[in-house]
């Protein structure tokens, strides 16, 4: 049995310990907001927070999250920074296809949690691992700055707070 938490829910599972967290979230918990893009920690689409640190869930085995706190995109609007970042993403009309944006947002929130007003270089460093094939990078940068300065143009309704129910 591996025990950890996802978005505050306590998880206890006997799914194979070599299963990447990503696929446990997606296939076992059916929480599909966290995306598969490359499988080897090159694209950042699968970014979640583990004990607050941005982590690539595709390359993090279940055995490595034992006893830890996992936060995913589905629950990020429960934090003040998460709310600000989501609002900024809307005000800057960041998304296009949207597939990478869960990961972009999780990386951005991790950055802003540590650095209140990041410089361009700090943004480059923090977001370097998140690929966007639609090329939304300039808007990602702008949205991070908007979130940092608290000048988002309009409020956003809080996202639903999904919780998960296990399936065999």
């Amino acid at each position, binding site marked *: 049995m591996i025990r950890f938490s996802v978005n505050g*829910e*306590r998880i*206890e*599972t*006997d*799914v194979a310990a070599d*299963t990447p967290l990503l*696929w446990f979230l*997606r*296939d*076992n918990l*059916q*929480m*599909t*907001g*966290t*995306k598969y*893009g*490359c*499988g080897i920690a*090159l*694209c950042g*689409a699968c970014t979640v927070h583990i004990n607050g640190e941005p982590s690539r869930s595709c390359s993090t085995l279940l055995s490595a999250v034992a006893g830890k706190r996992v936060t*995913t995109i*589905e629950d990020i*609007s429960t934090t003040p920074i998460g709310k600000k970042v*989501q609002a900024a993403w*809307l005000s800057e*009309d*960041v*998304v*296009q*296809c*949207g*597939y*990478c*944006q869960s990961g972009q*947002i999780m990386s951005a929130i991790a950055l802003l949690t540590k650095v209140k007003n990041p410089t361009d270089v700090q*943004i*480059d460093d923090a*977001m*370097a691992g*998140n*690929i966007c*094939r*639609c*090329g939304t*990078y*300039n*808007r*990602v*940068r702008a949205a991070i700055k908007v979130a940092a300065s608290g000048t988002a143009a309009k409020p956003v309704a809080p*996202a*639903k707070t999904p*919780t*998960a*129910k*296990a*399936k*065999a």
Partner: protein
Amino acid sequence: MKQLFENNVVPMKRRQFLKASAAATGGLVIGFQLPGGNKMAQAQAAPAPNTTPNAFLRIARDGSVTVLVKHLEFGQGVMTSLPMLVAEELDCDWSKVRSEMAPAAPQFAHTMFGMQMTGGSSSVSNSWTQMRTVGAAARMMLVSAGAAKWKVDAAKCRTNNGFVIGPAGQKESFGTLADAANALTVPTNVKLKEAKDFKVIGKPTRRIDAPSKINGSAIFGLDVTAKEVPNLHTAVVLHPPIFGAKVKRLDASKVHGVPGVSHVIQTANGVAVIAKTFWAAKKGRDLLDVQWDLAPGSKANTADLRKSYRALAQTPGVIAKAGNVESLKTAVKTVTAEYEVPFLAHAPMEPLNCTVSVKADSCEIWVGSQFQTVDQGAAAKVAGLKPEQVKLNTIIAGGGFGRRANPTSDYVIEAVEIALKAKVPVKTVWTREDDIKGGYYRPMYVHRANAGLDAAGKIVAWDHTVVGQSIIAGTAFEPMMVKGGIDATSVEGVTDTPYDIPNMQTSLHTTQTGVPVLWWRSVGHTHTAFVMETMMDDLAKEAGKDPVAFRRDHLGKHPRIANVLAMAADKAGWGSPLPNGVARGVAVHESFGTVCAQVVEVSLDKGKIKVGRVVAAIDCGIAVNPLTISAQVESAIAFGLSAALYGQVTLKDGVVEQSNFHDYQVLRIAEMPKVEVHVVPSTAAPSGVGEPGTPPIAPAVSNALFALTGKRLRELPFKV
């Protein structure tokens, strides 16, 4: 396998995307019917909304307005732009507008191509009249319903933001009038607004789909789970190591030991391992022991192709455009150059996937498809059904760039074959490696061009040869798009060059390699613009002219293109001083009815190309959503720049040498230039937006590097 929660938890609520969520009974439903192409026909007799496959618009009693979008949303913004067209004429409250993707059905065919599809940067242009007509007709019906209720002349009623208003100030919401309107005949004499009266079109409008894409609730194809499709399994397929190889011997004994694996199935193009979860299926696939018959496969080598293509380029091919190139002999100066561009993978962020559930007399598919009715027909054939027995649900896609528009429907028919054989619902998932190695690339091409100038610095003649595979040959599109042995997509952008060239000849060698190829964002223009626009730069240099002035001097018959070029040059401060170590380059190209010019500023940072700034001007007709147009131009630039700096798929003895984002690199945030997009005001009908920003970026960067270093780069990706 089992998981336990120690707490009681509420099941996650997901958007009920598979059922028409506007489950309101009644309301107004507007559709088109076949036959009659895009002519307005009868109103639907108010069936339940989710059984009205050809409805484009539903107005529910609560006043919500749902537009069914016939195209795939994969980033280009159709779930916002098409509803804007409807809303412009409907005069509804924008905050009540919803957007839903239409199912696959002939009624949702592209108005120009006759099939349901998304491509050619044509989603807005082909819907321009159709969607406004839907909105205008619905508005007329609502007005008639209001007038009838108040027993007044409809001509004396008006609408305002979701309400019909009568001559004495009577006022009813669209929702209240929807049932009565639905009983009326759809008018055929619909008058559309003049551009000067537009209120919605031209207004920068944030995307309708954005809120669902910032909280993980948007459902992409890969996100279809057992919640939507009970008993859903996942398949991962081992494809042949080289294109066209076949399974000779299969040993799956080790696979069956993997917990969760339920099936191992040999398919037409490999071996599928099926399990309850992706990870189990993938683990199983990794344990497959397959011997391949390589004999029927392609042994293509990039190095050999390069040699043979370059040799072919020295000889004239099939004439695509005839011209008197003898006059090159009269030239006082000539430029002769060879160009090479590689195979390119599309690499959309969401790897390919397709979910299929087959029953005795029906089949249901969930897929992010650019080719809905093509895929529906292909699936029907594999399943032994009629197309109308296949329900294809279009799911938003995480990019596509052409890969999800395959005339062979490769990944769809593979998924159908697997579900059919497994006798359970299956989501077939491609890994990133499967995607990069899986073929259907932008073809490799070599160009050779020879152009000459007269004493006045004007082009006198241009002899051009293109070598590469045909994207269209062998597909159902061949009769339409291959004429006289010339695949139009191999030479578009060369044969139709707008430059004033009195004698121009273009010929084409169509090659065969066994490597599957496909259109890739901006298709032939991906390579032809690179060649034409760097040649023009070399010729400007030879003529001793400024690159912008030289182009303008050859655009006498094309003031629209000259105007876009001038705008980009002006906004970029063309000719103004730059810091040391920074140089500008320019390119302009027309594609998909749209002209895009770009001026780039480039420097070298420790031998690495740094594109600091791109100023783009675009003339795409009436700008429906300026916010999306800017986003798409930024996107097209990033996509083209990824290819110019990094993109290449190479083959050794038939084996693709790349596999994932470490060796098929794409642009990252620090490499994204600052981009300014300037839209030329226009009263012409809208033209393409998604692709035309891609062709100019590679030549503009090459031209800037030439200005910076004096060295001309004619191969992609750039090697400095």
